[in-house]
């Protein structure tokens, strides 16, 4: 910090690309502190479980930061992947809850109750893998990612992008909902998969289990933030930004653009799937109402409110919007959706970078000035563009 020129050359030649800047480490520490210490100690089991449910959406918002914020791929169908992850987990839990002993009053004992009601007499083939927990844990991520891969590879290889892609993802969300609702015997229909009890013999319905699941969820979320941070910091992250700006320039720099888009979309799907599975575990059921168009758009709003370029913003945005949703929809159930719509429009128009943007433009400079004011003497002028130390 003694000589600006020296700082400049040094920052170019030595470590100009650290995994996380100090401010980012600080943001992570604050988030971890709030999620893993402050909230658990302040909230009762019921409220904590509610926050845990909100946080499962944060996985989706996190994926949207990479996919939409960085790569510029707006997906209005993230509910598909959230739902598929959730359904995979629910199928395992349902099979465990449908032991022969528990279902002996059915005409075919040992299969889920809704199958029995729909005159299905044997477990369908695609349910069979979910009898195994390790296989389920793999499929929770693999099924949605494979689905995302097929969709995105088909579309991006044909250079379908932008609005068209968004509309198609929305259509897929609608189709998947209709499919799940229509195939009641195989999926539980409109009610979804309910009455889930144990995970490998461990009762997930107790307050104690909810608390443990909350911490698992928090830990997974922080893990996903770190993965997203790694992607963002890698050259791949910069290629995503470059692609969003000038797709052709990236293509004519020797990259297969479609491959990178597929990666971003699949990563977002994987995050959403983990969120979905954690949702099922914490809330105790999965239904088509978390798959369709409305939840998919709500998830985009979480990312927009938090700031679509900010990993931490996505988490805070999700918490804030869901907290608002719970508070307002209790008092004004009819007005809530209008409020949500208005919030989205307001954010897009006034704060395109969401909460994170407000923080970066208004709060952070003030904090920095405060902190610098305490330190004497004031540091030399940092050359424009040099990374903050």
């Amino acid at each position: 910090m003694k000589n600006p020129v020296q700082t400049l050359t040094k920052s170019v030649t030595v470590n100009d690309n650290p995994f996380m800047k100090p401010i980012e480490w600080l943001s992570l520490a604050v988030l971890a502190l709030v999620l893993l210490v402050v909230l658990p100690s302040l909230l009762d089991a019921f409220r904590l479980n509610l926050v845990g449910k909100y946080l499962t959406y944060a996985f989706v918002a996190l994926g949207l930061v990479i996919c939409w914020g960085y790569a510029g791929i707006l997906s209005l169908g993230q509910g598909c992947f959230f739902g598929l992850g959730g359904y995979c987990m629910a199928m395992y839990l349902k099979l465990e809850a449908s032991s022969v002993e528990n279902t002996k009053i059915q005409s075919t004992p040992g299969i889920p109750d809704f199958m029995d009601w729909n005159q299905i007499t044997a477990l369908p083939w695609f349910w069979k893998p979910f009898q195994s927990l390790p296989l389920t844990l793999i499929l929770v991520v693999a099924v949605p990612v494979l689905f995302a891969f097929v969709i995105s590879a088909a579309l991006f290889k044909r250079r379908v992008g932008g609005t068209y892609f968004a509309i198609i993802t929305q259509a897929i969300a609608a189709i998947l909902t209709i499919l799940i609702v229509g195939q009641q015997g195989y999926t539980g229909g409109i009610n979804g998969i309910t009455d889930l009890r144990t995970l490998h013999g461990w009762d997930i319905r107790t307050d104690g289990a909810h608390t443990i699941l909350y911490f698992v969820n928090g830990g997974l979320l922080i893990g996903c933030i770190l993965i997203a941070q790694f992607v963002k910091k890698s050259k791949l992250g910069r290629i995503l930004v470059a692609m969003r700006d000038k797709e052709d320039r990236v293509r004519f720099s020797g990259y297969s653009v479609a491959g990178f888009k597929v990666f971003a979309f699949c990563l977002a799907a994987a995050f959403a799937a983990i969120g979905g599975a954690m949702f099922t575990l914490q809330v105790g059921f999965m239904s088509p109402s978390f798959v369709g168009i409305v939840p998919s758009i709500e998830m985009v709003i979480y990312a927009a409110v938090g700031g679509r370029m900010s990993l931490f913003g996505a988490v805070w945005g999700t918490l804030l919007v869901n907290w608002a949703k719970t508070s307002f929809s209790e008092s004004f159930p009819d007005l809530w959706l209008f409020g949500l719509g208005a919030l989205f429009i307001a954010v897009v128009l006034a704060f395109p970078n969401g909460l994170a943007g407000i923080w970066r433009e208004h709060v952070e400079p003030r904090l920095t000035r405060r902190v610098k004011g305490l330190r004497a003497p004031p540091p030399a002028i940092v050359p424009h563009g040099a990374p903050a130390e």
Partner: protein
Amino acid sequence: MNAAILPGSVIGANPNAPEYLLAVDALTVSFDGFKAVNDVSFYVDPNEIRVIIGPNGAGKTTVLDLICGRTRASAGSIKYKGQELTKLTESAIVQAGVGRKFQTPSIYDDLTVFENLEISFPRGRSVFGALTFKRDAQVRERIHEIAETIFLKDQLLERAEFLSHGQKQWLEIGMLLIQDPELLMLDEPVAGMSVGERIKTAELLNQIIVGRSVLVIEHDMKFVEDIAHRVTVLHQGKVLSEGSMERVKNDPKVIEVYLGH
């Protein structure tokens, strides 16, 4: 150096080793029946600066689009070092050693000059490669070297959006240079530049020509005279004239359709 990064182009393995770096033969493309490029043939030697001139709508940019794979040819062939380009994907063409600059500066506004150059560095072009790409000393040195060549060494950490128009053009040329292409295609590299910037660009082109061929589209005749080894004149999708600047300038057909006004 080039051979090392171009696994697809093993000249030694080819019995009919080409003498031309680029051979465009009877190239035709039609858009809904309109032939934007009609039976165009020309040949570019190694280490040659070839300039394509012609009035608006002559098909100059389309020719570059065809070579780099952005537009698919309806008929004809484009051979680069004996390798047929018309069937390759855009990224494979780049990896074979063809670099292309667009007409308007096409750079990444949200990234720094350093990062712009880094993305063009020919390593880690697969998804996995990009994830594990390390910004090592070799990358840094090369970026610094290129930045020096394109007069941007003091702007490395600046966001590209804040560069002047001329600097953006240079940056894009630099992004191509770092790929070390054997054939460099530039679409109007001095359009919108000041006189001083034009002189510097001509100097830059003469400096980077070593070891590669350059195909330039340009309207500025003074600039063309400064740099061109040979000139190809296109008119209504066809080659009207070809040869040295001197010859082309005195060709009555060229004077009539292009230089006359």
